[in-house]
């Protein structure tokens, strides 16, 4: 086991409950290749332990395995070697305890906005009226009031993403796995939803694993930023973001913030360069 990859995140501020919400202890995952003859190593000896209630971002070059790791936590991929753990129990498959916002467009086109947001609640057997009520609140919160009856194909890409967010929030999972949820949004909506997410998180203290390419976003939201490197996918460094909470728009202008974001940029740039070099 490569020691340089192993790390523990400490979350000194709030939690006393030390059992990690999510953890992987030296998992490896291979994809079966279509062209090459050797199995393709996507995740190499990943060690990560995420305490309950913390907000962790995954950043790294494209193709380094961020989505794959998130799917492992969701139970949608069972790693070739080892198991991911949720509150100390091995994750054997997907369920509503691990909510996921997918990188792709995952809103159901055959249901209108209201029914999409109700879907998770319905699967859990919540009654019609209560369900409609909960869904309405979340639809309003993501700024889609008035579009309840619209079908996804009548919405813009950013609006569909917000439906997706409302759907996952409404189903109230224990951990939130978010794969570039704000990537397709316009800058203003993005800022608003970042603040909304922070507010929600500060209230509920759910465990969030958040994949992003936007380093400012990672620094602004997270307790910890995990930087991954590609080929094979591995953890290359970990940054603890000690910027005090609650964080507000002004936080972005502080020296501490810009310095951290700048350091992250440098690190990623190095990784991209070396990944490009090795692939040639």
């Amino acid at each position, binding site marked *: 086991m490569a020691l340089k990859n192993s790390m523990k995140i400490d979350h000194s501020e709030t939690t006393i409950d030390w059992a990690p919400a999510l953890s992987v202890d030296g998992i490896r995952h291979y994809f079966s290749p279509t062209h090459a003859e050797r199995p393709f190593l996507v995740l190499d000896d990943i060690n990560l332990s995420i305490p309950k209630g913390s907000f962790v971002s995954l950043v790294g070059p494209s193709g380094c395995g961020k989505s794959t790791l998130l799917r492992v936590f969701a139970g949608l991929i069972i790693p070739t070697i080892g198991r991911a753990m949720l509150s100390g129990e091995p994750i054997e498959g*997907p369920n509503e305890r691990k909510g*996921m916002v997918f990188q792709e467009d*995952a809103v*159901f086109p055959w249901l209108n906005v209201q029914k999409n947001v109700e879907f998770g609640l319905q699967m859990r057997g919540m009654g019609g009226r209560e369900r409609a009520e909960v869904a309405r609140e979340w639809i309003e919160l993501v700024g889609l009031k008035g579009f309840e009856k619209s079908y996804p194909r009548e919405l813009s890409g950013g609006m569909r993403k917000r439906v997706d967010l409302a759907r996952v929030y409404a189903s109230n999972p224990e951990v939130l796995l978010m794969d570039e949820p704000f990537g397709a949004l316009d800058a203003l909506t993005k800022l608003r939803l970042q603040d909304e997410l922070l507010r929600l998180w500060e209230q509920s203290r759910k465990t969030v694993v958040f994949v992003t390419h936007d380093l400012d976003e990672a620094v602004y939201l997270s307790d910890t930023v995990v930087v991954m490197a590609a080929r094979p996918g591995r953890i290359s460094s970990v940054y603890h973001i000690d910027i005090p909470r609650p964080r507000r728009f002004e936080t972005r202008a502080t020296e501490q913030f810009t310095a951290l974001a700048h350091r992250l940029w440098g690190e990623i740039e190095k990784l991209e360069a070396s990944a490009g070099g090795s692939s040639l």
Partner: protein
Amino acid sequence: MTLIAVQKTEPQPRVTARLNAEATGRAEAQAQEAEAGRKFREQASAKRRLQVSLGILSLVIVVAIYWIITALPSSNPALLPPPGVIVRGFVNGILDGSLFEATQASLGRVAAGYVIGCAVAIVVGSIRGWYRIVGYLLDPVVDAMRPVPALAYIPLVILWFGIGEGARILVIAFASFLSCIVSVTAGMKEVPIVYADAARTLGASERMVFLRVAIPSALPYIFAGLRVSLGAAWGTLVAAELIAAQSGLGYLLQAGQAFFRSELVIIALVIIGLIGYLMDAFLKALQTRLLRWSSRSG
């Protein structure tokens, strides 16, 4: 140096814009909106008018050409009955109830066979398209049955079941099944996996993923299958009645030939075409209603 001089002397055109003040020209905007709405409706109805009139035109042309051919001195009225004879035959057929009877007999058979065949195709096709193991099990059987036209089973069906009503319905059900299941299976294989994954992370059981995600997602394909197999069922029916029946439109075709009454043949052909067209139009309207969410609903 000269370049710089030129740039200095030519005045640069500037962007001009007037800022929208709050609530200016509200009344004007409303009038414009109403105007736009009227234009949209007009465009839609103009399109519709064009579609209908061109459709009628093409029918008229076909009838006119037929008329001209029958009016030629060289044409044989026994083989090409003039439109007058056809209309008379049609009126007689309606008055003595024989056309109605034939149509009713055929429609009853098609409805029974079509509904049975498609119901089985939707159940079997969706399961074999979604659950890989069932697919492995059934694919060879279904795929080997598909290239054989349903009509080719008629001799066997007659040997086993005689030439009763059940045998005819069975053949039609079989024809509907064979053409419907292809598209149902394809639809289930095309379901984007991310929808199923999203449903699972929202707490859906595998059964719910099948019923509430895979089936709705495949609905456009299922509808395509329903429309294709309606044509197949109708066509097979006529052929089945040609071979073995004492009633129905196919029988009418065959009787027209046997008694050398070509106008009966043409009347039967027109009715078959018309009913097929109406049934497809009905399915299309249903599809447009049910699949409003899909970009393929048109």
